[in-house]
């Protein structure tokens, strides 16, 4: 039996109660919406990208479960100051971690590790990855609605 506390760590409750970088970003030059058709949750990610493709600022909005809110909150803290390529590397690494896949990438996932517990809950992996799919479509300005499907 899995211990629920592996999934719901105190850090997750903290981010869920007071999400960081929450709300619209007035200076945004990129915006993407994400949708999880499984639960109906939506998230909007706002980015301010500099001319040399660095994430100057990032914010998010939306209502979701504790896992998706905490993941979005931690995502914004992670990608701020990164280039598109660097952020994408985190996306890949996070995605593999959430799905419980091995990786050769020795990237330090740092505070993202608190979400590693979702790998034991297949139905919740998408909650954790939604914000990352969404920031990715904002980074590449795909114009599509990001989904976890």
């Amino acid at each position, binding site marked *: *039996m*899995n211990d*629920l506390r592996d*999934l*719901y760590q105190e850090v997750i*409750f903290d981010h869920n109660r007071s999400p960081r970088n929450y709300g619209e970003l007035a200076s945004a030059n990129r915006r993407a919406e994400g949708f999880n058709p*499984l*639960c*109906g*949750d*939506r998230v909007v990610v706002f980015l301010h990208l500099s001319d040399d493709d660095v994430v100057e600022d990032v914010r998010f909005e939306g*209502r*979701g*479960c*504790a*896992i*998706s*809110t905490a993941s979005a909150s931690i995502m914004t803290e992670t990608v701020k100051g990164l280039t598109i390529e660097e952020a994408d590397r985190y996306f890949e690494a996070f995605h593999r971690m959430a799905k419980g896949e091995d990786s050769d990438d020795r990237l330090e996932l740092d505070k993202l590790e608190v979400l590693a517990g979702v790998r034991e*809950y297949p*139905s*919740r992996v998408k*909650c954790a990855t939604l914000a990352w799919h969404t920031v990715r479509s904002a980074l590449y300005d795909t114009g599509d609605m990001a989904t976890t499907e």
Partner: protein
Amino acid sequence: MKKSSAALNDDILPLDVEAVRKDFPILHQRVNGRPLVYLDSGASSQKPEQVIHALSEYERRDHSNVHRGVHTLSQRATEAYEGAREKIRCFVNAGSVKEIVFTRGTTEAINLVAQSYGRSRLGPGDEVLITEMEHHANIVPWQLMCQQTGAVLKVAPFDDNGELIMARFSELLSDRTRLVAMTQVSNALGTINPVQRMVQMAHDAGAVVLIDGAQAVPHGPVDVIELDCDFYAFSGHKLYGPTGIGVLFGRESLLEAMPPWQGGGDMIKTVRFEGSTYNDLPYKFEAGTPHIAGVIGLGAAIDYATTLGMDRIAAHERQLLDYATDQASAEPGMRIFGNACEKAAILSFELDGIHPHDVGTILDHEGVAVRTGHHCAMPVMEHFGVPATTRATFGPYNTEAEVDSLFAAIGKAREMFRT
């Protein structure tokens, strides 16, 4: 679902739940170290031993294709298959087996009516009237058909208790209304609609009526003659039967006049390259080898439900719903969606400060299986301004002790989230 069922409740013998539970092998297991508390029958009910046995016997002894061979197995399979059709006819009180068409489920039954009846009869400016509380399966097939024909989709709203606003329903019926499609029981709110009255109103306006009975059929007796509906759709797997099998009841005169929907074997009389002639009802609408085991399993499920007694099932579920609703009203920060006077055993709720997905995971950890999400009724979620709800649904095998387990698990969720 007959109006008389509520009045009968006082006179009927209560269900022996412990005996019923013994019939359902799946219930006797532990999930995450706790006894399973299955409160998701609204999504899919469990199967009694009697259904599992019928399925297994068919596969082990009688399986063959139906309506095809002269050999013994084919005759046995055909007899069992057509025997089940007769059981279903009797169960919904249809006049003839010609009116009982097998489909993959409620969804396919509605699509059949939309594509065959709707597409051939409706044109630009004609109207289809549905309600705001429909399952996606009773919305999207009509949207597709409207795109194809130029017909217009109208939606009758419900109020904040989850009751259909009958005055609006009445206003929306016009001489352009060709078809009315509504659910008998809302899967997201539990509301029991006054379908008999609605059918009459729709008929007075000159429209034909389809009733989505997916959530209604498992929870009380249904009589298509008394309802006077033109089409009635339901699924096997919410009625203790297998998945992948459903039923469309259709009024014979309407089915007779409708063009086939899918073409293939079994639905034809003669095939020539110059043109083919179609089989009689109901086979005209059953192209290809059907889900024979599913039909036989559904027949066994109907035998089982009938033996328990649909009135007794309804009374038992009503008791559980009342018991759960009382506890819910005492629970701080718990909001119930759907407070209709006439309500089936569906408790849809949200807990202040805890998202339904988190509730679902924590409940599962306590062995309690509930549905969380939009319940394929996004417009209902939109009405209440929530992305999702948690939904507990009760069946004949559920007990008051299990309702207590649900609320104990809800307590655990609160503790964890410190709300």
